[in-house]
């Protein structure tokens, strides 16, 4: 037999919605069959009568009395329910701080106007659209999503370049900005090293080793694994490198990549060489031909790159670029190299190294048959002549013993107004001329002086292969040549690279300034305290919060629910506006 229990409260006011909510809660309690919570108006009494909740107490209630009625299986359940009324009326559900999750990037950007970065991890087919929107809102993008077509990647990166924005990705797992890790990233202390990587775990490995070795990072910028492919052409990589070059807090730069397109790798190195700071290079599977070339330091692997960077960062070597070469001394038409070698191997090595600095080197004994000189007696453009070749030694002594032919050729080359650098090798020791410098040095001095009269600066560079215990004495040979005005070193490579830098500098001096493409990344956007908008995986937003970085997570849904025809209409509408 069901029982009805009533409670009347006078002089209280509750919003009607609150009363309905209380009624629902009471009706849901164990043992309660039905409940009514209303003000005691006539129409409400009628309502209670209609559902058999009318009791004598209810009948006597006045319109401003609160009427609480429960119907239950027994007294106990009714009493327990009534005991809960005050608690239920006082119940508060949550705090006001639970933030609003916007439905669109646009709203998120209004909520967090200082957020420079948007992390995008939505399904691949939507990623390009979201990225485009982020770029239009002027934000850098960390594009975690994969399955973005290379065509979309290129289009997005070109648009980003026009706006001076970075698109890190697609399929970019890792980035570290100002000590905060985005997506897959480690906690790395702040420090003097900046890393640009077309390699996710590559970036993590280098970053962690830098940290383990006691140093730290300014930025770790992932570009996505395809950035150094021929199609994409390092669009993001070059912008990131440029930004780190301009960043005063970055003292050393590391560039690393999964196996890059060789052509694109050279483009990156070309830009890296212009950086006014040391750049450690580790391109996986790219053969290392030298450990150092100017400001470039070639590492053998990820760990080696980290180690090198940490070492260099301790006391960063000054990089003065081409300033030390004093290129202004050369006349505009001076641009060619002439190598007059007595040693065949030295001549070959010179060809090999110079190939990294100038488009082609002609030789009478070329590495590549294509570049064989038409006439060994007549130099063309950049030429290396091995005077020890048979064609020159018929009926005369080898040039290591007899300097006469080489000196004659030296005079000839020195007169050529297009020649900038002449290189000679001086090989001493047993069997060689007893004092080659005594003949060569005066000739060099004369050539330099003649050129000077003509208003030209002639750079003569010599490698001396010998020791201080040789009969001709290395130091004495060097001194004579230096006094004559030559650049001298005991290393063939050092001398050739020195010449190479001059030649490259002169070639670039002549070339018209490259048209500025796009817009450079505004360093201020990287410098200000990191704030992030997250679209996609919610855990990335949680990671930001854990790193005390302000973040707004977008409650994103596929546009038009992923319906192709509707998406197409919306896109066409956007293009028209």
């Amino acid at each position: 037999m069901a029982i009805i229990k009533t409670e009347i409260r006078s002089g209280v006011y509750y919003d009607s919605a609150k009363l309905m909510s209380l009624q629902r809660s009471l009706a849901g309690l164990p043992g309660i069959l039905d409940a009514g919570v209303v003000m005691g108006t006539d129409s409400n009494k009628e309502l209670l009568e209609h559902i058999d909740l009318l009791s004598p107490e209810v009948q006597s209630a006045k319109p401003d009395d609160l009427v609480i009625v429960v119907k239950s299986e027994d007294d106990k359940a009714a009493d327990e329910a009534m005991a809960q009324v005050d608690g239920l009326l006082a119940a508060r559900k949550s705090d006001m701080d639970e933030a609003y999750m916007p439905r669109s990037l646009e709203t998120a950007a209004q909520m967090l106007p200082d957020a420079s970065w948007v992390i995008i991890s939505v399904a691949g087919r939507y990623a390009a659209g979201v990225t485009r929107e982020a770029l239009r809102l002027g934000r850098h993008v960390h594009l975690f999503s994969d399955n973005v077509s290379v065509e979309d990647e290129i289009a997005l990166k070109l648009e980003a370049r026009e706006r001076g924005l970075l698109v890190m990705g697609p399929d970019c797992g890792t980035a570290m900005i100002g000590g905060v890790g985005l997506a897959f990233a480690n906690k790395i202390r702040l420090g003097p090293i900046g890393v640009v990587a077309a390699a996710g775990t590559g970036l993590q490995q280098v970053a962690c080793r830098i940290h383990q070795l006691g140093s730290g990072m300014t930025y770790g910028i992932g570009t996505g694994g395809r950035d150094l492919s021929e199609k994409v052409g390092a669009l993001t990589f070059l912008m990131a490198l440029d930004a780190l070059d301009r960043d005063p807090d970055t003292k050393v730069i590391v560039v690393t990549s999964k196996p890059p397109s060789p052509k694109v790798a050279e483009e990156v190195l070309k830009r890296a060489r212009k950086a006014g700071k040391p750049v450690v290079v580790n391109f996986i599977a790219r053969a290392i031909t030298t450990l150092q070339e100017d400001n470039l330091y070639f590492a053998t692997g990820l760990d080696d790159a980290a180690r090198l960077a940490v070492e260099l960062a301790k006391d960063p070597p000054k990089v003065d670029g081409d300033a030390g070469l004093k290129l202004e001394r050369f006349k505009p038409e001076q641009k060619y190299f002439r190598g007059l070698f007595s040693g065949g191997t030295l001549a070959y090595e010179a060809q090999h190294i110079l190939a990294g600095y100038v488009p082609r080197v002609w030789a009478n004994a070329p590495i590549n048959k294509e570049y064989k000189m038409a006439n060994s007696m007549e130099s063309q453009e950049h030429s290396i002549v091995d005077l020890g070749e048979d064609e020159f030694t018929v009926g005369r002594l080898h040039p290591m013993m007899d300097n006469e032919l080489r000196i004659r050729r030296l005079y000839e080359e020195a007169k050529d107004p297009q020649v900038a650098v002449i290189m000679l090798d001086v090989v001493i020791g047993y069997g060689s001329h007893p004092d080659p410098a005594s003949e060569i040095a005066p000739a060099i001095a004369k050539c330099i002086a003649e050129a000077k009269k003509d208003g030209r600066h002639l750079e003569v560079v010599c490698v001396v292969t010998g020791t201080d215990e040789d009969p001709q004495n290395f130091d004495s040979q060097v001194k004579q040549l230096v006094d004559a005005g030559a650049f001298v070193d005991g290393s063939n490579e050092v001398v050739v690279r020195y010449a190479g830098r001059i030649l490259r500098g002169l070639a670039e001096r002549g070339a018209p300034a490259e048209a500025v493409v796009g817009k450079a990344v505004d360093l201020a956007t990287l410098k200000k305290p990191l704030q992030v908008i997250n679209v996609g995986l919610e855990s990335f937003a949680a990671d930001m919060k854990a790193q005390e970085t302000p973040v707004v997570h977008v409650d994103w849904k596929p546009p038009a629910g992923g319906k192709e025809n509707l998406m197409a209409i919306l896109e066409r509408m956007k293009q028209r506006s």
Partner: protein
Amino acid sequence: MVDIEKANTTVVEKMMEARPVATGVAKALDVVPGMTDDLLLHAGPPVTWERMSGPMKGAMVGALIFEGKAKGWDDAEAMLKGGKIKWEPCHHHACAGPMAGVISPSMLCYVVENKTHGNKCYSNLNEGRGKVLRMGAYSPDVIEKLKWMNDVLGPTVGKALEAAGGIDIRAVLAKALHMGDDGHNRLDAASVLFTTQLAPFIAKTARDTDMAFEVIKFLGENALSILNPVMAGCKTMTDAGHNVEGSTIATVMTRNGTDWGMRVSGLGDQWFTAPSPVVKALYFPGFSEKDACLDIGDSVITETAGIGGFAMATAPALVTFIGGVPRDAINTTLDMYEITYAEHKQFTIPFLDFRGTPTGVDIRKVVEKQVTPRVNTGVAHKDPGVGQVGAGVVSAPMKIFEDALVAFADKYGI
């Protein structure tokens, strides 16, 4: 080539510039355009008798009894099914009616004039809460009350409105939003303001003090007194923005208990419809969701104009209807900014630093973001004759927006 942004700007500007003023009360047959002696108006898009919801049928039957054309259900139904009585949407006749929204020829209606653009709209008198015609009740006491309203309430209020020189509905709403109303489901403040403004004139124009007492008491006790002129007022706003070539803004949203319907400014008088959803609601004692009629009423014209559910942040007390917390009210409004074209110049939200309410539902944004308009609403019993059973919130069906987008692309060659 049509310029959507320009068209939409025109529409929302017109909607926001519109200034509806309730100027008087008049017989529907005399003022409602196209009203005839054998016509009933109803809420929502067009509907057949077979598909018509219970409360709307009940309201139509009640209206015919009120008109003296029928005695009860059977002969009323026969007249309706037999074609002797026709029915058309309020929205085809510059009207908006709450819930079933049934307006019959001799019913008195509020006349609301948009002083900015000159267009007029109409709505009937509000019966209060409980067992009422608009919820599908048609018992003798319901009809009695309607008669009293037509004989006493309407004429008195009409004279008072004239004497007062009209009441500026937009100004009342703007103030009420700062007093905890949303302008649709919660009109406690606006109704008090309305009554306060009318009372002195009622005191003057009523036949005697008893009548003045009766009328002022009725208006003052009914927290929805102002709902009907508000709806007509909102309709003058959205009508001002209707039929602008190239606009993607919704200018009519409404339901009839069977279907949800929408019209879009740039798509003329074409209806886009989909089945009406179930309202997520709190129910009166003894009722539950299984008793509920599907979403019904023209009152979503308030959301169409930028208040109601869209202004939920001004009425946090309403969140209890959905078992929510005040933060949910804020979030509802923030969500609506995602799908609207403008922020209202007249209606502002104190909590959001007086940001304007989200105004002008843009079908493009609704489809793109997959967020549909949120509406605060009452719930009628699904059967004729019962009345209101609860109140809650509901979201419009996505299909009408998707269909409209396709139709728009079609019409404009996009």
